[in-house]
């Protein structure tokens, strides 16, 4: 699905920087039209979003905290993309992954956080992997459509979690469906506290140790996809299943493994949200971040180096969107959803619309430069 630079010899910064900037600008313009249509001032609203997202230390912390979750879900989408699979089940995989994180932490009361972290990561990854591997298996061996099955698995995950939270995991004697809190020794350190320990003052926010985990995951995914034999098999299958088969790769197996890895990455969202911030199992904690991962991956061109800035941008949109709701009662949170959709449209479906224009722009310029000395 058009990963990489393509064959038209655009310089890397044109595909990697210019095109995304064009796409985001267009998405913001469309959103400005929406704000205008409901009778508010688009410039003022975008200003409020910007201030809310990066204007204060607290806002910046929230932006980074959302970006952490988005890095996980976007890496999940990206790795599947490279395997030729469109995984839109990140939301459900993150949800079930969080269940794994929660179960591990509920089982380890009193453990120090650093000893529990590897196990909670493993729990989140394993549960997410399982939830994604089933649609993967169904696609590979039964010919089900991965997009439809992963969507169905989102709905099933949601029903399953409601059942578990209401009937099994709810803290006894409590009305709202939440589990008991994890014991305080398990809480991941907050970034503000870590910084304070080394003498740096930072506003308090939900930003926590998971950010390092997310960055580590970026390096891991990059190394895996481009520098391992398995990553090669994955890309080969994604590029051409038949060719992969003749190269001695079993595409069916690769599909299941790719989906499992994708789900494992999505499942890590639970580490940031539950282990890092909520400190208990609760309903609806992925809150759409699984879907936003699609937009982040597309904007980041399915490469970790692109996903990090794209996740920052969307983290800023989330945080700015929250601020917007305070200031403009007529604008609702879902404006962020509109922006996401438009980014996916421009960066994903309409990517060929601007590419030729850019190619023309770049193929002309060297020619002009070359003709100048001749003319002079």
């Amino acid at each position, binding site marked *: *699905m*058009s990963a990489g630079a393509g064959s038209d010899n655009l310089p890397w910064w044109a595909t990697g920087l210019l095109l995304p900037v064009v796409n985001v600008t267009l998405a913001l313009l469309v959103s400005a039209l*929406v704000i205008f*249509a*409901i*009778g508010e001032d688009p410039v003022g609203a975008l200003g409020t979003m910007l201030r809310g997202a990066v204007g204060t230390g607290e806002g910046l912390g929230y932006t980074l905290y959302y970006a952490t979750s988005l890095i996980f879900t976007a890496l999940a989408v990206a790795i599947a993309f490279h395997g030729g699979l*469109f995984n*839109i089940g990140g939301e459900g995989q993150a949800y079930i992954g969080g269940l794994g994180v929660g179960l591990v932490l509920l089982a380890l009361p009193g453990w120090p956080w650093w000893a529990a972290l590897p196990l909670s990561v493993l729990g989140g990854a394993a549960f997410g992997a399982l939830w994604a591997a089933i649609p993967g298996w*169904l696609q590979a061996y*039964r*010919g*089900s*459509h991965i*997009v*439809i*099955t992963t*969507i*169905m*698995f989102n*709905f*099933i995950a949601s*029903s*399953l979690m*409601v*059942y578990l939270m*209401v*009937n099994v995991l709810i803290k006894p004697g409590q009305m709202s469906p939440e589990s008991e809190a994890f014991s305080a020794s398990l809480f991941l350190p907050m970034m503000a506290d870590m910084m304070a320990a080394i003498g740096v003052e930072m506003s308090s926010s939900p930003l926590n140790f998971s950010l390092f985990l997310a960055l580590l995951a970026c390096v891991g995914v990059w190394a895996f996809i481009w520098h391992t034999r398995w990553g090669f098999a994955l890309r080969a299958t994604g590029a051409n299943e038949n060719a992969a088969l003749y190269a001695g790769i079993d595409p069916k197996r690769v599909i299941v493994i790719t989906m499992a890895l994708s789900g494992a990455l999505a499942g890590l969202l639970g580490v940031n949200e539950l282990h890092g911030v909520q400190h208990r199992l609760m309903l609806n904690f992925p809150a759409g971040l699984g*879907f936003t991962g*699609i*937009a982040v991956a*597309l904007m980041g061109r399915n490469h970790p180096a692109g996903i990090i800035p794209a996740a920052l941008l969307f983290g800023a949109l989330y945080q700015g969107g929250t601020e917007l709701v305070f200031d403009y009662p*007529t*604008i*609702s949170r*879902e*404006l*962020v*959803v*509109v*922006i*996401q*959709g*438009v980014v*996916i*449209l421009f960066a*994903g*479906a*309409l*990517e*060929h*619309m601007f590419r030729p224009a850019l190619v023309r722009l770049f193929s002309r310029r060297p020619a002009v430069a070359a003709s100048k000395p001749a003319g002079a």
Partner: protein
Amino acid sequence: MFLTLLSLLDSTVRLATPLLLAALAGFYSERAGVVDIGLEGKMLVAAFAAAATAAIHGSAWLGLGAGILASVMLALLHGFACITHKGNQVVSGVALNIVALGLTAVLGNAWFEMGGRTPNLPADARFGEVTLPLAEALRGVPLLGPLYYELISGHNILVYLALAIVPLTWWIAYRTRFGLRLRAVGENPAAVDTAGISVTKLRYQAVLIAGLLCGIAGAYLSTAQGAGFQTNMTAGKGFLALAALILGKWKPVPTLFACLLFAFADALQTRLQGVALPGIGEVPVQLIEALPYLLTVLLLAGFVGKATPPKASGRPYVKDR
């Protein structure tokens, strides 16, 4: 028992209608070689536009018109991305679904200030029940009377319209020149192109028909079945419709039966809640609620056999040079 079964079948027909309309929309689009994941989004904008218009102007028909218009606009955007610019069809569909989800919530909240809902529609701004001729008179006839009165009569006009579109679609697809070309462009666009027929034009026509049908489906949700719009009120119906289309192997009549099956699971779902089943006991509500989705997964995995989509489906047509 007979009456319980009748009312179960009656709600099956009601619940199948939006699925059927959306699945037939998918039929035209996918038969022409354009994958349509965006059925959900088109239904959603249509449901919102229909309810909003009906709430303001008090007319269900105006609502239907607005719903169709909104859905067709989205369909054109899909066509622009997939046909004109040869973009990834699945990505385009997903994008439109997300835009629709956000836009209806933002506009609904701003215009009606009811947390994304539209006001409750009064009876005359909705599509009411149509009592078929002689239904009252024949009601007393044993067996056939209730069957006619409960199951066949008493639906709104859109239900009958949806059912009529099934044979119409069959006739268009298999008995008209347009249908032949439509199916051909989904299998082998190069051949159609060689015959001097515009692939682009045919695909746009198909996508527009899909927009029209999704528009009716969405308007049905908010102005016939329901009495107003709620955020994300399609709740996966577009994907169930797509699954029904696959289950029906991209053929209109089998697709109708697949829709009826999903709708039956849905109708059963509301009735099973809180009921203790013999030998099993009470089944958790959440399991019952997940029934249509589980059924979709199981059917797609187990019973379709090898589902063969139209050959050119999902591939933009690029002329060889």
